[in-house]
C-alpha cells in the first residue's frame, strides 16, 4: 500500500467520524464545541505526559479524553447554573484550560518534550510510518487507521442504534422530553462522542482539520437536504471527498496536507452556498427574477380569468 493510500484513508476515516457527530452539533448549534475541546485537552496531555513520563499514546489519549469530557461538562454547567451564554461559556472554558496547559508545559519545560505546535498540528503526513506491529512482529498497518476506524464504527453504531431519539432531540428537545426520551442523557452522550471523536482524530490529523471536519461537511450537507438521514450520508461523502481532494491539492501546492483538506472543505462549502438548488444564493436570485419576470399584463389577465 502506498503512503498516499494510507494518508487518504486516515483523512477519510477522521472526516467520516467527525461528519457523523458534526451533523448533530450543527443542528444543535454547538459546532464550536469541537474547537473548544481540541484546545482544552492540552493540560490533559501535559499531565498524562508528566505522570507517564513518556510519549506513549494511550495515557495521552486517556488524559485528553478526560479533559474533553470535562470541557463539555464545565461548559454545560456554566451555561445552566452560571447563567452564561452558551458561546461565552465555551470561550471562557477552553481558553482558560488552554492557558493552564501552556503554563504546565512552560513550568515543566525540562521534563515535557512537548510544544503547543505538535499538539495542535498533529501531522497526517507521518501516519503511514507510525505502524502497529504486534509483539509477534506482524505488521497491521498504520496505527491511526485502526484508531480512527474504530472511532468511525463506534459513532456509526451508536448513532444508528439511537437514531430516532437523537433525531427528536436535535430538532425539538421539548417534544423529546414530553415523549419520555432522556434528553439530558442524549446530550451528554453527544458530548462524550464529540470529545472522543475530537481526541482520536486530532492526534493524527491535527486540531484544525478536526474543527473543519466537524462543522464543514455537516454544514454543506445541511445546504442540500432537509432530511437527517440524507444529511448524515451527504456529510460523510463530503468528508471523504475532501480528504481525497485535499491530498491532491497538497501535492500540487507542496504544502500541509491537513491544511489543504480544510481548504477543500471551504471550497466545497462556498460552491454549495452559491449553487445548491435548495438554499444556494444563485438559484434563489434566479427564482426571484423569474417571479418578477411575469409581465404585469399577464398577471391582470390571470386575475380576470379567475
Amino acid at each position, binding site marked *: 500500500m502506498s503512503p498516499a493510500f494510507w494518508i487518504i484513508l486516515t483523512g477519510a476515516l477522521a472526516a467520516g467520524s467527525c461528519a457523523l457527530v458534526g451533523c448533530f452539533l*450543527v443542528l444543535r*448549534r*454547538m*459546532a*464550536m464545541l*469541537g*474547537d473548544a475541546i481540541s*484546545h482544552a485537552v492540552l493540560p490533559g496531555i501535559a499531565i498524562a505526559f508528566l505522570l507517564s513520563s513518556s510519549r506513549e499514546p494511550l495515557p495521552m489519549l486517556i488524559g485528553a479524553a478526560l479533559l474533553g469530557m470535562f470541557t463539555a461538562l464545565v461548559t454545560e454547567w*456554566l451555561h445552566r*447554573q*452560571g*447563567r*452564561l*451564554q452558551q*458561546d*461565552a461559556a*465555551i*470561550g*471562557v472554558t*477552553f*481558553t*482558560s484550560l*488552554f*492557558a*493552564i496547559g*501552556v*503554563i504546565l508545559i*512552560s*513550568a515543566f*519545560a525540562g521534563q515535557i518534550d512537548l510544544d*503547543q505546535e505538535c499538539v495542535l*498540528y498533529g501531522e497526517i503526513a507521518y501516519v503511514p510510518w507510525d505502524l502497529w506491529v504486534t509483539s509477534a512482529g506482524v505488521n497491521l498497518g498504520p496505527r491511526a487507521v485502526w484508531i480512527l476506524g474504530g472511532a468511525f464504527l463506534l459513532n456509526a453504531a451508536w448513532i444508528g442504534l439511537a437514531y430516532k431519539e437523537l433525531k427528536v432531540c436535535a430538532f425539538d428537545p421539548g417534544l423529546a422530553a414530553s415523549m419520555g426520551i432522556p434528553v439530558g442523557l442524549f446530550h451528554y452522550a453527544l458530548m462524550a462522542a464529540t470529545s472522543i471523536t475530537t481526541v482520536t482524530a486530532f492526534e493524527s490529523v491535527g486540531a*484544525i*482539520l478536526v*474543527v*473543519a471536519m*466537524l*462543522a*464543514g461537511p*455537516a*454544514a454543506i450537507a*445541511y*445546504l442540500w437536504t432537509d432530511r437527517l438521514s440524507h444529511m448524515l450520508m451527504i456529510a460523510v461523502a463530503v468528508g471523504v471527498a475532501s480528504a481525497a481532494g485535499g491530498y491532491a491539492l*497538497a501535492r500540487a*501546492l*507542496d*504544502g*500541509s496536507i*491537513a*491544511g*489543504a*483538506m*480544510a*481548504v477543500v*472543505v*471551504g471550497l466545497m*462549502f462556498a460552491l454549495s*452556498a452559491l449553487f445548491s438548488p435548495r*438554499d444556494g*444564493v444563485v438559484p434563489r436570485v434566479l427564482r426571484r427574477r423569474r417571479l418578477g419576470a411575469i409581465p404585469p399584463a399577464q398577471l391582470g389577465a390571470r386575475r380576470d380569468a379567475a
Partner: protein
Amino acid sequence: MNVALLFGDANVRAVALGSMLLGTGAGVLGCFTYLRKRALLGDALAHATLPGVCLAFLVTGTKHPLVLLAGAIATGALGMASVNGIVRHTRIREDAALALTLSVFFGAGIVLLTRIQKSGAAAQAGLDRFLFGQAASLVQADVWLLGGVTVMLLAAVMLAFKEFQLLAFDAPFAATIGWPIGALELLLSALIVVSVTVGLQLVGVVLMAALLVTPAAAARYWTDRLPRMLMIAALIGAFSGLAGAMVSLIAPRMPTGPWTVVAATFAFLISMLAAPRRGLIARLLRYLRMRQRTTDENVLKTLYHLAEPSGDFDAARSGAALAARRPMPPRELSGALGRLAQAGWVHRAGGEFRLTPAGRDRARRVVRLHRLWEVYLTERLHLAADHVHEDAENIEHFLTPELERELELLLARPTYDPHRQPIPYDPPGPVR
C-alpha cells in the same frame, strides 16, 4: 526582589503597559461581541489572520511588522465578511459559520506556512510570533502602537456609543429608524479586527480570544447597564494584563499571555460567585430565603387550618398536632416555628404554639389567596375542582396585594372556594 525597582526597567514597563492596554481595549470591544451573542468571533478572527501574515511575507519578502500587520488585517476582515455573509445568506447559523471560517482560513494559512518553511527561508521564526504571541519581546515601539490603537478604539466607542448600544441590543430597531446599520457594523468589525491583530503578537491566537470573551462575561454579572459593563470589563482586562506581566516578572520562565488569561478567568470565577444579584451565591441565598418563607407561611397556614373548625384561634397547638395535620420533616418544622416565634408571628408557651394577632392576619391572608386562586382557576380557566389545589399551594406565597385586589374585584369576593371552604376576608363583607 524589589518589584517597584524592576518597573524602572524600560522593557518590563513595556510588557506591563502593553498587556494592560491590550486588556483594556479587548475588554471594551468584547462587551459588544458578547451582547451580540458572538463571543467566539475573536477566536475565529484571530485564526483568520494567519493566511494574511503568510501572504504578506510571501509577496513582499520582508518581515517588517507593519507589512505583516497589514496582511493580517486584510484576511481578518475577509474572515469577518465570510462569517457575516454565511449567516446572512444561507441557513447556516453563527456557530457553524465561525467554526468553518476559523478552520478553513487557518488551514489555508498552514498550507502557506509549510510552503514558506520548505522554501528554506529561515524567516518563519518571525511569523510564529503571530500564532503564539511573545509578550516578553515587546519593545517601546510596540507599546506606542498598542497605545495608539487602544486610544483610537476607545475614542471610537465613546463617540459612537449610542449607536453601538442600540446595535448591541436591538439591531433591527436601529435599522427601522433609519440608522446606517451596515456602516456601524463595519466600523465595529474593523475595530475588532484591528484589536485582535495587534493583540495576537502579544498573547497568540487562542489567548487573544480569551481577552475578548472572559472580561466581558465577568463584567456582565455585575451590572445591567452597558456603560458600567464596559468600564468593569476594561478594568478586569487591564488588571489581568498587569497580573500576567507581574507573574512573568517574578518567575521569568512563566509566559505572560497564559497568566493574563488565568488572571482573567480568576476574575470571572469571582464575579460568577460573588456578584450581587446575578452571582451564584446571591442567587442561592435568594432561593433559600424564598424556600424559608414558603415553609414559614405553610406552618402559619396549618395553625390556621387547625383552628378553623372550632373557630378558636387563641388555642395553643403542639408540634405533634401540626405535623399530624401537615407532614413535614421535624427539623424543618422546628426551624420554621423558631423563626416564627422570634419574629412575633407565633407565641410559644411551653411546648405549644399559638398564632399572635399579626400571625393570624398573615395566615388568614395566605389561606385567602389559596382559596381565591382555586376559585379563579375553576371559574375563569374552567379547571376541574380537584386539579386546582397544587397550583394554589404554590402561588399563594407569591401573589402581591395588587393581584389580590384584582382577584377580589374580578370574582366579586366569593364566599366559598370550590371545596366549600369559607374564604376569610380582611375586613369581612362585600368588595368595595
